[in-house]
């Protein structure tokens, strides 16, 4: 279970999150929506431990572990996965090499046996098939020369292989055409189950047609101003953010 209490955070002393309270119970998928600049990406970075994004107040725990005190790799080993809005290119680093190294680093940290190469490739091929990705994706360098859509699918592929317990998807839908969007959504839906939770950060309601969230939260100026069921997303789609933001202010 992800529990965020009164979280204040910013970049280099500039406050961006101004007291976020959020609970995502195990097994649930929550969507966080909000206009540009509301702090959506900052929240994802604070939860995953990016340098420079420091919490100044409040707490964020996952299954009782204090996330804010942990190194990024330790959070990953705990099962927290961030699908990046802008996946980073790693020239010269093969995708398969990267994924297997990451998987085994996490397994090692958890005291689990490492996955040998044949089992890994079996696992990876199955995951790629499910995401309609060509085999050569594994041979290419991580995100180098990938189209926007390929990068996003690569993030979902990583999620499918690393099998996190908490996935944070930071605007994974941006830049995707409708076919790619469905593939990405299927990838997330496949993970859904009693042990998997997700925070889906998005600007548009579109993705939520395919991944139906348990709860929807609206973020504005670094705070959650409204929470509700999936119908809240539809309301936003119909009326926009402006009215809701004004109402909250």
């Amino acid at each position, binding site marked *: 279970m992800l529990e965020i209490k009164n979280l204040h955070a910013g970049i280099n002393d500039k406050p961006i999150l101004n007291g976020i309270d959020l609970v995502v119970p195990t097994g649930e998928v929550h969507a966080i929506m909000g206009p540009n600049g509301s702090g959506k990406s900052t929240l994802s970075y604070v939860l*995953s*431990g*990016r*340098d*420079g994004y420091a919490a100044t107040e409040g707490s964020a725990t996952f299954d009782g572990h204090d996330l804010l005190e942990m*190194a*990024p*790799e330790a*959070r*990953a*080993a705990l099962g927290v*996965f*961030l699908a*990046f809005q802008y*996946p*980073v*290119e*790693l*020239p*010269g*680093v*093969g995708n*398969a*090499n*990267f994924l*297997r*190294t*990451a*998987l*085994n*680093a*996490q397994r090692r*940290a958890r005291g689990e046996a490492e996955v040998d*190469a044949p089992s890994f*490739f079996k696992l990876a091929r199955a995951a790629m098939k499910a995401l309609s990705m060509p085999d050569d994706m594994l041979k290419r*360098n991580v995100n180098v020369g990938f189209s926007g859509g390929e990068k996003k699918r690569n993030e979902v592929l*990583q999620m499918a292989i*690393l099998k996190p317990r908490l996935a944070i998807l930071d605007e994974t839908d941006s830049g995707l055409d409708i076919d790619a969007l469905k593939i990405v959504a299927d990838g997330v839906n496949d993970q859904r189950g009693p042990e998997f939770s997700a925070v889906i950060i998005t600007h548009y309601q579109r993705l939520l047609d395919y991944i139906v969230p348990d709860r929807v939260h609206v973020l504005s100026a670094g705070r959650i101003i409204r929470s509700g069921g999936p119908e809240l997303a539809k309301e936003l789609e119909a009326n926009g953010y402006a009215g809701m933001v004004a109402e909250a202010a």
Partner: protein
Amino acid sequence: MTAVAETLDAVQSVTDGGYKWGFSTDIEMDMAPKGLNEDIIRLISSRKNEPEWLLAWRLKAYAAWLKMEEPNWAMVHHAPIDYQDLHYYAAPKKKPGPKSLDEVDPALLAMYEKLGIPLKERAILAGVELPEGELPQVAIDAVFDSVSVATTFRSTLAKSGVIFCPISEAVLEHPELVQKYLGSVIPAGDNYFAALNSAVFTDGSFVFIPKGVRCPMELSTYFRINARNTGQFERTLIIVEDGGSVSYLEGCTAPMRDENQLHAAVVELVAMDDATIKYSTVQNWYPGDAEGKGGVYNFVTKRGACRGARSKISWTQVETGSAITWKYPSCILQGDDSVGEFYSVAVTTNMQQADTGTKMIHIGRNTRSTIIAKGISAGRSNNTYRGLVKVLPKADGARNFTQCDSLLIGDQCGAHTVPYIESRNRTAKLEHEATTSKISDDQLFYCRSRGLSQEDAVGMIVNGFCRDVLKELPMEFAVEAQKLLAVSLEGSVG
């Protein structure tokens, strides 16, 4: 893919810090007194029963050396070297007639184990019989200090007409070849260190690949400095006749010492029509300690002549060791349509200094060269790429592509790029690109958010940065090289 996986395992198995190959072996030495003069040169020559012409050649080189000055243009700094304070000859005491490997000093075999020479090679060195009909994959001419003490597979190689032996033996058994080619690529008076080597070289490897023969195995040599104050002056000569090919591997480690050790090797390659030579080096001589104390001075002259049409010489090097590296493996592209390649990774940490690169001299028509150089600087080190691409007037259609990339780790190091681009032919096309960067915070965070530790992330990004070079190495070397990169940079990012 399995090699990559194996590499990762290897990287992870590497334990913390230090120079794990820093040890020395206790073998009785037969050593000449310190100092350099004509008498020492005569001594070396007589110990090796050399013919008169070679002694004369050495003395001529010595006379030239006396008139030369140590080069000072490289971006390296060191205390003056006292050339009279070194031993120029040392050899393991010979037991009478070691006809087989069983008779080789067990201490030497034990050393190969510590050096991490792959098991199959150790087994070969230990004299394990191979199943009938199976060809060994790697032959080793091990140089222990200055004298070759073990040579394997000469009979297998001899069947195909390949000669692979210590150069001291070649001088005696194939004098016509040695006399014809020795110094033909790097003349005795070429530069200060080459002249010194020509005067006092004690041993090295000799390879001759006759017409039309593709060498059936990769040839490999491990060099090692052992005796205190023993200058190392290897001399390697590789000749490949028309249509022949060979892949030669060279790797070295050096024992930990407090005093600086001088290493001035010379490597000459000759490729005739349609011949191919691939020369790969992994160099991790002792780099000195964190304060810059000790370490090897590696002043090497390597040059290949593409004499024949369509010949090809490819240099690949991974340089992680030595206190100072001064090294420019070069290609003289004389034959029409000949090809020169230089792939290099140079890593410097702590107080290391490296000034390395290549020269590509385009003489023949349609000659082509490729240079890919990756420099990684960390600590308080300085890492310089220095390269020359020269196109002479007759080299119609010559092509060069050069890519130099520098990666800086930390703000106390230096990364420098000094290319010289000289074209005297209208139809030649030369392209040079250089970049300087650091490992980006985005890349580090991305890797860490997937579960990699900071050091593993750095290792992975650095190996990615060097990939274009590492992929040129033969597989077993690539694994060793990746491991070396990770070991070398341990603790550099913090």
